[in-house]
């Protein structure tokens, strides 16, 4: 039964995330709305763009992947903006996110440990065993302390509290509950041997080992979290890709690009729909935008 829940949870997690990705990827191309510095521009150190060049369209547009990777990694690994602009929060949110990263690494290590057992790769057994122990222990401690700390901060700080909804608290409590039950389960399986055996069972579709009640509750809660998470704003790890790469750093000009056909479709196919006096909702964007002619005749009704 627990196994079924785990497989279902993983499937839902992947499918809903995929659906979200498709939803945002298939939205119409928006108008340009970037903010500098744009790190893939070679002039990003001073915040510059290709518009600093005379006749920019006649010159090759240079991009630096290294600049973009560096900025991405600074944000992903160190949460740079919170560090720079809200240090007091960073001391709480950074260890929390580090805990998440480490627990993901722990799952990967557990997976590897299981494979090592299945394929009997003796030489790797002990290094991975100790690594799993260290990574898992740190992750649990960080998540336990800092999910609670973030919750306390949200409750106690008026500036956060007055904007927070029930779900903002619930998300942190849910994570805390998952980690707490995980920590209790850990007490019964201090070196994660049972966890590894459980993983082995999941990989080989065989019967799992007998686990403590705490572990059963933990697995159930973790599976529920996996099902719940993709429906929430906690999927910001995915949508940040859009906000940065598709909006704030998106500086692709129409000249020399392949987006023109799509844009023509929006302009001539999409109806404006708005109802203010100066707009005819039944016209397309192209018809509406060209309503004023060059002789000065214009139908801007107010």
């Amino acid at each position, binding site marked *: 039964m627990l196994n079924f829940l785990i497989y279902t949870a993983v499937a839902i997690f992947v499918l809903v995330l995929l659906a979200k990705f498709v939803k945002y990827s298939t*939205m119409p191309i928006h108008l340009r709305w970037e903010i*500098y510095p744009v790190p893939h521009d070679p002039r990003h150190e001073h915040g510059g763009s290709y518009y*600093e060049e005379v006749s920019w369209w006649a010159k090759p547009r240079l991009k630096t992947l290294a600049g973009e990777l560096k900025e991405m990694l600074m944000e992903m690994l160190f*949460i740079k903006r919170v560090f720079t602009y809200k240090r007091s929060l960073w001391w709480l949110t950074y260890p929390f996110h580090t805990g998440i990263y480490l627990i993901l690494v722990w799952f990967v290590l557990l997976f590897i440990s299981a494979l090592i057992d299945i394929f009997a790769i003796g030489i790797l057994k002990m290094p991975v065993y100790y690594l799993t122990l260290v990574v898992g222990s740190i992750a649990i401690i960080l998540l336990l302390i800092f999910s609670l700390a973030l919750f306390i901060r949200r409750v106690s700080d008026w500036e956060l509290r007055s*904007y927070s909804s*029930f779900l903002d608290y619930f998300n942190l409590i849910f994570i805390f509950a998952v980690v707490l039950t995980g920590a209790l389960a850990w007490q019964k399986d201090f070196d994660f041997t049972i966890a590894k055996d459980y993983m082995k069972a999941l990989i080989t579709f065989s019967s799992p080992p007998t686990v403590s009640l705490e572990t059963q509750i933990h697995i159930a809660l973790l599976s529920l979290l996996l099902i719940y998470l993709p429906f929430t704003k906690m999927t910001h790890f995915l949508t940040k890709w859009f906000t940065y790469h598709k909006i704030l750093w998106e500086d692709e000009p*129409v000249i020399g690009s392949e987006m023109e056909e799509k844009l023509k479709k929006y302009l001539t196919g*999409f109806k404006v729909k*708005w*109802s203010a006096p100066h707009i005819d909702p039944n016209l397309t964007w192209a018809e509406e935008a060209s309503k004023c002619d060059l002789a000065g005749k214009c139908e801007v009704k107010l």
Partner: protein
Amino acid sequence: MRERIAIQDIAKKEGQLVKITLEDLMKLPPPYDKPGMEPNVTEPKPEWSQNYVTELDGYVAIDIPWKPKNKEEEEAMVQKFINGLKKLMDKEANWTFLQPLLLSLEYCARCQTCSDACHIYISSGRKEIYRPTYRAEILRRLIKKISSGGNFKAKFLGDVELNAKTILRLAECAYRCNLCRRCAQYCPLGLDNGLIAREIRKLFVQEFGIAPQALHAQGTAKHLTTGSSTGLTPDGLKDMIEFFEEEIKEKTGKNIKIPVDEKGSDILLIHNAGEFLSWPENIEAFAIIFEEAGLDWTLSSEIVGYDAVNYGVWYDDVQFSRIALKHAEIARKLDVNRVVVGECGHAHKALTVVADRIFVGEYQIPRESFLPILWDIVRTKKLNLDPNKNDFPVTLHDPCNVVRLMGIVEPQRKILREICPKFREMKPNGVYNYCCGGGSGFAIMNSMNFPEFRTKVSTRMKFKQILDAFQDNISPEVKKYVCAPCSNCKGAIRDILGHYNATANCGIHYGGLVELIVNAMVDIEQPYIEMF
């Protein structure tokens, strides 16, 4: 006193939500750190509240009487607002900004990191309603509320009552943001509360026809129908051109013919028409530089073609598209190779960046800023310049639209380093600059008591930066120059210098970049910049 205003208060609280007081405002550097150095704040006239929305902070940006008179009108307003919310979420009606809007609405962690980026929030003494997340959170909750299962969602995602108070205050609140988007630069998740302010404005104008008159009736509508939001007509322009040519001759001894409607020119130069009326020396300086550098250029006298502004970029996608398309059509008719935008920040961003994706086919004519061209002229020594002629302290204001939102940072600095020996930076600067406080239309919104909000709150941070930059020479005997290569920024800075009497108190003057270049020209004997 810092009032604790909650999200729900927008729908419930009677009277003004907040009140601006001198005591609460951010402190200014010397000599404005002493009492009595700045005029006090005023109260809104009591009769205004009959027709106008004074219930936010007492200031009125939307200078149109639009309060509902009875229950029926109130219900109709709520229904119209709901229709507008749905259109904001619609793929066709809002294809222009749907993706960034949805992401910004869905993913805010309410961490409030963005608040410290906002000059209005900080300058006001951290009044809650100016926090970038305040209006965004209200819009977010209202959208959830009207979606399917709204009342259920409201319980878990946060609620706010939807009534006339909410709608009226939210509309005003959308005009307490300069759309400088510094908050988006701070956001760890890459979300954009500046965009949300703009989308709220858009809902009100595109569904209700409601916007400040300076932007809509006297702005884009006038621009499209008479040729310029200043009211300047093609005939008026031609008269002015003649006057400018005479004035150039008088001031510099140079015989310069300003080219107008010259088909087949390399460059169509378009200025903010405000320059023609308020700062003709800027238009003249451009003519002097472009002619001396031997550029092949022209102005347009076609309706709309001689005014680069596009106020639509601040509040209305339809008006924005109409104006942008006319600019492109005029360039196409003149058969120019490229359009060059003069000292107007929002026109830079509107025409060059934002409108890029509505120009397809023959309308896709290259557009660029004047700044790299100027640097090229200075760098290649096409003009004989003597930096000693600019031997006074100069600081540079970075227009958000040119710098943070377009990435043109260095050309203007390279020019100033070359021609102004006493150039010093404001802090912060470049892409991390603060808005002048006139952004998103504030510089031209002059009705009722809105100018007071501008001078007291939105431009306050810029005034502080200017004072800080000149602290080493703050006495009025030393003439100083704030270089603001943007018409609206210049207007905002003119107003703060006037409000605080800073030219008399501190010797601070302001102007554009081209004026400094002409001032440094060796063959012009009289100072071009009139400070002394």
